């Protein structure tokens, strides 16, 4: 569904992604793990069209999207939920969700829009309770739910998420990962970047390990969880604490 070959990308005078290649098959959850500054965010921003690639090929559903600007890529069914809860703070929750469907404003019939809005509200009932509230006044967790909900309103086939669990309470993290699993069951394809490697690998089918702008390892999620190097580098201390936190969340 998504195929990246030998991608090079970065900022003005800093090359961050140095020849990354990876692919995502339809219906998969694929995760990319890696240390701070490895270039995960830059990679997703390049895929979403926010950062221009310098070299290499990105194709989505066999169509090249390498040179497309961000506002065109959403329309093709490939949407990014960016790092750090980027909601429209001065707009209401419902207006945020409405604008999520902007790329389909001409093709989406009213009833269909209503139905999909209902679907998002069913995934995140909290958003429905707060539909008239300004998004900027939502809690961090609610804003992340809204960011995901807004991405879903674009009717994407591929959803890319950049650290959806960052800075959220364990119980909210759990909700969000459950939603991701449900989205896969609904037929969506997911590319997930996470610091929370343990949680990400638990729901993922496959994973890539990224280091200083390159993909250094590709394996099934189960293999990565058991990989000694990966355990030491990314699951080390986290391994236990996350599991504990998860249980705490369940008890609440």
């Amino acid at each position, binding site marked *: 569904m998504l195929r990246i070959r030998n991608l090079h990308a970065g900022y003005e005078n800093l090359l961050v992604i140095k020849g990354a290649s990876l692919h995502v098959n339809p219906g998969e959850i694929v995760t990319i793990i890696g240390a701070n500054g490895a270039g995960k965010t830059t990679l997703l921003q390049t895929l*979403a*069209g*926010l950062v221009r690639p310098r070299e290499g090929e990105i194709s989505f559903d066999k169509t090249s999207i390498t040179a497309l*600007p*961000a*506002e*065109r890529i*959403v*329309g093709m069914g490939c*949407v*990014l939920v*960016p790092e750090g809860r*980027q*909601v*429209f*703070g*001065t*707009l209401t929750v419902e*207006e945020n969700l*409405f*604008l*999520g469907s*902007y*790329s389909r*404003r001409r093709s989406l019939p009213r009833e269909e829009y209503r139905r999909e809005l209902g679907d998002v509200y069913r995934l995140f009932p909290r958003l429905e309770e707060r539909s008239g509230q*300004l998004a*900027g*006044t939502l809690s961090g967790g609610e804003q992340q739910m809204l*960011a995901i909900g*807004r*991405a879903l309103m*674009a009717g994407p086939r591929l959803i890319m998420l950049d650290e959806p669990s960052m800075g959220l309470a364990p119980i909210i993290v759990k909700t969000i990962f459950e939603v991701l699993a449900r989205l896969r069951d609904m037929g969506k394809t997911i590319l997930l970047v996470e610091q929370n490697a343990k949680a990400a690998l638990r729901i993922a089918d496959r994973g890539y390990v990224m280091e200083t702008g390159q993909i250094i390892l590709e394996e099934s999620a189960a293999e990565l969880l058991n990989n000694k190097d990966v355990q030491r580098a990314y699951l080390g201390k986290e391994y236990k604490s996350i599991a504990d936190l998860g249980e705490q969340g369940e008890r609440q």
Partner: protein
Amino acid sequence: MTFEHVLQYLLAGITIGSIYAIVAIGFNIIYNTTGIINFAQGEFLMVGAMTAVTFSRLVPLPLAIAIGIAVTVAVGVLIDFVFIRNLKKPTVLNMIIVTIGLSIIIREVALHVWDEKVRSLPYFTGDEISSINILGAYISPQALWVLGICATMVVLLNVFFKYSVMGRSMRACSANPVAARLCGINTKNMVTMSFVLSAAIGALAGCVMSPITQTQYDCGTSLAIKGFTVAILGGLGNSTGAIIGGLIVGILEEFSISVMPLAYKDAIAIAILLLIMFFRPSGLFGKQEVSALKEF
């Protein structure tokens, strides 16, 4: 002061105040989309009115006004295409400085195109001596035109920003341009739209006020200051606030004539601006919660 006097000042204040409100709304439209203050907003009124005056000798008045609006919109689009769209580092501060520079350039060009003479459009209906008696006070029919057109613009703009797809996406661009792009919104086009819209309403306001206040190449500056004061007073970005703010400034100005020398009239707005900056930077009607979410 007799009741008639009070009413007279009040009507004059409401009329001029609604012009200030429209200038303020022009500021708000661009602010709401880009987060920048377009200090060339006053020049939009001047260009619209001056162009309409020139053409009013050749074509019927409504057509002349339409041409004035079209030319002003063209100027607005040109500003966006040449200066805003391609700014290397489009930070808010950079863009504001660009608009200040542009306001000076437009004024100088207008001086060359038109000279420094004061002009005005003919009255839309009646003439300078016709007036309507309201409870003993007299109001020019043109003042009714001002009020009617301003009120209509405000209502239409509110509906546009609240309910239309384009209005909502323009607000989204201001709230979070990157997220807007990720939703598929072409942010650059929305910025252009905001210049089109505020140039158009600015030009229309310039035309409708021209018979009363007259128009000169440099009349945009003081209008921009008044409009900016009103925008701040009402809470930047808040168009209901702009209307109330406009009426407050307009009415205070008119009443000041009865207690202070005329020369101090223009100082009223500056005084209000300073007071607001000190005591309530979010404006009278700017919601604290909203202003906390904005850049400034």
